């Protein structure tokens, strides 16, 4: 437990370092800052994985048994999704806005870290369940990134319209790049969430004898909204701004599903 906590703390420090150098790179645009940020992020990601691995060994499963572990896993997925997008789009200037999500969730996870590993629940075990939860968390992480990217897109559009072109305008990527990054993160989220939901339905049928849970309806509505985001530009000729607003709306629904639905509507998707 202590090793896991120490590794988590180290990962947090490395993420903070990556964030500091990302901000410095945004302000001064120096290649060396970008390289250091990338190295710290990669190292942080690896150390964070080690922390999760230690936590997982104690509970003999993917670390999602308690809220703290789930938040840590979520933070790791955010950092990973950002890393994938950075590689895919060769674009680092969004780092200062995306990394804080991973830092926040890992920080809260460390603060709420339980003294002892939660006892294993035999009902919530097995590969099917593990994949369901892990992929769902990856989906949430990707949608969180898309939420931040949608806002950056709107900021850039607003700056172009109002002609107030400050430092942020010159440093943030072009609209088409932001739009592609937004689509990539939504794409990751939609695929992960769809597979997670399908596995969840199979698991539910096997364990509960029914597919139905109110959470399912909200999740499919969420997937529907994000699929619309992917297709609206091409088939409905929606502007990027409109797609970004829809994406933000989708994220609000996700938060609603994660909080109100989990707490008051469903009995089965509650974190203890």
């Amino acid at each position, binding site marked *: 437990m202590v090793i896991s906590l120490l590794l988590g703390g180290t990962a947090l420090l490395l993420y903070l370092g990556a964030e500091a150098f990302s901000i410095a790179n945004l302000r001064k645009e120096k290649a060396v800052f970008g390289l250091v940020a990338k190295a710290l992020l990669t190292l942080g990601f690896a150390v964070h994985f080690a922390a999760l691995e230690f936590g997982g060994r104690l509970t003999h499963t993917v670390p999602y048994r308690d809220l703290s572990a789930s938040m840590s896993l979520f933070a790791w997925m955010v950092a990973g999704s950002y890393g994938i997008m950075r590689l895919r789009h060769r674009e680092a200037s969004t780092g200062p806005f995306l990394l804080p999500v991973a830092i926040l969730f890992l920080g809260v996870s460390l603060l709420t870290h339980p003294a002892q590993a939660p006892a294993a629940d035999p009902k919530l075990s097995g590969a099917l369940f593990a994949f369901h939860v892990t992929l769902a968390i990856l989906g949430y992480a990707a949608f969180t990134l898309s939420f931040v990217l949608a806002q950056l897109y709107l900021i850039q559009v607003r700056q172009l*319209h109002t*002609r107030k*072109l400050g430092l942020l305008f010159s440093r943030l990527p*072009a609209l*088409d790049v932001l739009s592609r990054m937004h689509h990539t993160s939504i794409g990751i989220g939609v695929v992960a969430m769809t597979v997670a939901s399908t596995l969840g339905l199979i698991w539910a049928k096997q364990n509960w004898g029914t597919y139905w849970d109110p959470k399912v309806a909200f999740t499919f509505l969420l997937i529907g909204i994000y699929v619309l985001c992917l297709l609206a*530009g091409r088939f409905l000729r929606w*502007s*990027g701004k409109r797609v970004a607003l829809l994406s933000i709306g989708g994220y609000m629904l996700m938060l609603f599903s994660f909080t109100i639905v989990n707490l008051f509507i469903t009995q089965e998707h509650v974190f203890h």
Partner: protein
Amino acid sequence: MSRPDESPLLLVGWDFRQTPVELRERLAFSPESIEAAVLRMREEGLLAEGVIVSTCNRSEVYGVRGPAALEGDPLLALTGFVSEFHGVPRHEIEGVGYRHMGADAVRHLFRVTAGLESLALGEHQIIGQVREAFRFASSAGLTRTVLNRLFQKALEAGKRVRNETGLNSKPISIPGVAIELAQKIYEDLAPRRFLILGAGETSSIFYDLLVARGATNIEVVNRTLEKAQALCQRAGRAYPWEDLAARLPKADVVVSATSATEPVITREDVRRAVSQRRGQPLFFLDLGIPRNVDPKVADLDNAFLYAVDDLQEIAERNRQERQREVVPAMAILEEELEDFLGWFGSLAVVPTITALRRKFEAIREAEFDRSLEKLNHLSPGDREKIRLMAQHMVRALLRRPTEALKEADDPTRRLERAEAAQYLFDLDIDPKD
């Protein structure tokens, strides 16, 4: 470092600030005439080495004083040479240029290379022009130790200013601002579709700019089709004015520069075009005066409109930002200047001779003391004789190197010999000597 009036580093120049364009044209050096001029200045003993930087905005001669210029004012002699070489009366060029020696000449070159002396403050083409001038002089054998080091240092300084300050980070010309804005909508402009309205001078400037950036999808719409066809000979296609409505939805960036007195693109035209574009934004650069594009277009979702006034305002803001970067740029240049002058000062002959003597005397004393320890049986008189012999030997050994350091007929050769002596005898130079 020598006193300013003795410094071997020289500069005479004429730039856009003080010299009218007609005179600058007459003072310009072609690549062939650069070699001929420096070779002649060397033959006449005016310069030991030389580099000429000649662009549309400046003609500058950098050099190291030659043996014939050791007496009198070497800068006046250089000015006289340039006047004679170009056949321009001396009185016409004496009052309009600048003449520097020593640190001032070095500082000027550093400022030029960093773009601080350019018409468009901070422009970076000049660093390429200085590099080219140096490369040319170097390959023609016109430079040696001093100018090689000086120009390498100037290029390093220019590069540092470019990388470490915001002097060149934002464009200050209208076309530069327009391209930067377009790149904030579409990062890679090469595959984008451009629609140019009008085929006049402004359209032609933008057409050239786009072609230079690799754009091939350029469509030119003009009331006189022949003019549009004449414009897009290298790339793109010409369309008659009637096709404007059909071409508009297909464009990503529209550059409008017609002489129409009323807007030729209305809000309704753009609304219709945008609705056919599968969510892709449409960017308008309205360079017409009066405006060619209805200003209400700016209110539309997914359409962005910038007119000449907007571009001018941004260019002016960028200009002010560049101005603020002059102070940090100068700090970098002063650092590099100090570094260069430190090296240059260390090559002075007198400190080298002093260091050489100090080194030999130290060796003599050490060896003398070591030997005497083993020769206890010698009388004080014999010891004194040996000491004097060692002293004479050192003086005799140093006589020729000292003469060689002093006698060199041009400053560069003296500096080269000093550098060689420092290297061969591993000398520690104290510039105060």
